[in-house]
């Protein structure tokens, strides 16, 4: 389809533009790794020579280590919760045939339309009302909420891509709802589940706007970075830490994207089902499927 008549015309200039756009997208972020190896306390040209001393400062820093552990634990628990909710919400939305399930699914995608600061303060009021107060549990709840639209969208497009006949065959052959879900639908969507989990983990791991309101005495890694930004002397350490976080994020995000596409292509190459006009194409995230 891309080899059509209009492919060549204008494609060249547009290609140059796309490359320039990608440079703009990546260049500022890649400055962080560049200056993290620079032997200077300032992020400025000319470069002052190569060093790994800033990375050495990361080790043995107990505040950093506890923030990292905190982020990891919260990330895993929040990602588990968000993935569980994403699976059940999208499954019931597609197969539950109830207005309640459709409503839940619609509300679950609502946080996209709420600025993070309002999500943060609304949860702050809630956790104080139920007596929890700012704490790790509060952060987990906040991150389940922030990651929920992503897990719902991924799982929904995955379930929608599984031919309906497979589920119907299982039910016709006498499998219960639970058996059909557990033995047929879940295994078929395993790559998407893993992908949703990884992306939810990343969202939690990198999240700052909401966690700012919910953290008690144990900060997460982004909060630790925020606290260090006030001190010019810790700039190189922040860049070394930032580089490590970026590297981990890139690897996890890449693995998740590959998994999601592989999972979709396993059942996708069949003619488009006319009864499902909103089926997402090629597994792209479609936030606003109405």
């Amino acid at each position, binding site marked *: 389809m*891309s080899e*059509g008549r*209009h*492919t060549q*015309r*204008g*494609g060249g200039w547009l*290609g140059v*533009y*796309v490359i320039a756009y*990608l440079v*703009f*997208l990546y260049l*500022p*972020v890649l*400055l962080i790794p560049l*200056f993290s190896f620079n032997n200077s306390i*300032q992020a*400025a040209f000319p470069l002052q020579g190569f060093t790994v001393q800033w990375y050495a400062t990361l080790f043995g820093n107990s505040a950093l280590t506890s923030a990292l552990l905190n982020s990891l634990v919260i990330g895993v628990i929040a990602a588990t*919760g968000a993935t569980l*909710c994403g699976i*059940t*919400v999208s499954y*019931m*939305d597609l197969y539950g045939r109830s207005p309640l399930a459709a409503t*839940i699914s619609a*509300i*679950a995608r609502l*946080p996209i*339309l*709420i*600025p*993070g600061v*309002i999500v943060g*303060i609304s949860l702050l009021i*809630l956790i104080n009302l139920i007596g929890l107060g700012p704490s790790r549990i509060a952060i987990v709840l906040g991150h389940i909420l922030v990651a929920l639209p992503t897990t719902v969208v991924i799982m929904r497009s995955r379930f929608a891509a599984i031919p309906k006949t497979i589920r*119907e065959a299982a*039910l016709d052959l006498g499998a*219960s*709802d*639970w058996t059909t*879900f557990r033995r047929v639908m879940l295994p078929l969507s395993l790559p998407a589940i893993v992908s949703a989990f990884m*992306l939810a983990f990343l969202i939690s791991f*990198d999240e*700052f706007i909401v966690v*700012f*309101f919910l953290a008690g005495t144990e900060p997460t890694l*982004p909060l630790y*970075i925020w606290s260090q930004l006030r001190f010019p002397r810790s700039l190189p350490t922040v860049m070394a830490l*930032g580089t490590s*976080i*970026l590297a981990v*994020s890139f690897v996890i*995000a890449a693995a*998740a*994207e590959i998994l999601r596409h592989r999972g979709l292509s396993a059942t996708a190459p069949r003619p488009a089902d006319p009864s499902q006009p909103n089926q997402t*194409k090629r597994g*792209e995230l*479609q936030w*606003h499927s109405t």
Partner: protein
Amino acid sequence: MSTLVATSAPEARSSSGFRAAMLLPGALVTFLLILFALGLVLFLAFRTNDGSLLGAGFTAANFVTVVSDPLYWTVTLRSLVIAALVTLATVVTAYPVAYYLAFHAGRRRGLLLFLVTLPFWTSYLLRVFAWKIVLAYNGVLNSALIESGIWSEPTLAFLNTPAAVVVTLAHAYAPFAILPIYVALDTIPKSLVEAASDLGARPFTSFRRVVLPNSMPGVLAAALVVFVPTVGDYVTPALVGGPASTMIGTLIQAQFGKANDWPFGAALSVAVMLVILAVVLVARIADRRFGSRT
């Protein structure tokens, strides 16, 4: 869901236990953490601040202050202008990329899609931080300009300006805009474009009359997913904006922090949600109008 209207016999066996178990997690999260929590904000917005969690007595004074104090008009207007500029910049710059992906990318499409989505999953705080080191007085841009002889001494003009906020936010939310536009462009039947050119439309005419109107739902979705988080942002103004670029999110954050007036912060939040609601409604109406053409 219209796709599931056709009822098949096995559905009748649907056990209520299974349904309840499957609905429970989502119901808890959506009703408690989203709806109830937002309801609390609305409730609190009509209370008087007496230092207690839920305030005391009902009042509309918070909203009167929001509407009558020119400070809040200034900051709200500034937030709207900044968010509108960011949205415009992101959508306009993303459109050609989405267009290339949909019509010209060929075999490179998978790789390019991957490259434009990857920054989506990296730390927002770090993306903003990157701009802080770029724009700082003794930062990357100033030193590079001096090093290359373009500038003789560093300038303060980059950091702590509303322009810095616009550039930083436009960069931070750039990946959000491409995908919705790409999906909209990619789902346009190729026969439509071919019919236009067969009927003698020149490439630009067929783009203006066929491709662009058909991609408007994606453009509007992109505008919305960029506008909403930027209008309430408080991190970027704090890191690169300086006092002249205080946004409404900054004020909300302050009410729940230093200022410690939660009811007033809640009223500001309600005001922001009303503004967003208005924008969503306008987008919906625009969507209908463009949608009816196809």
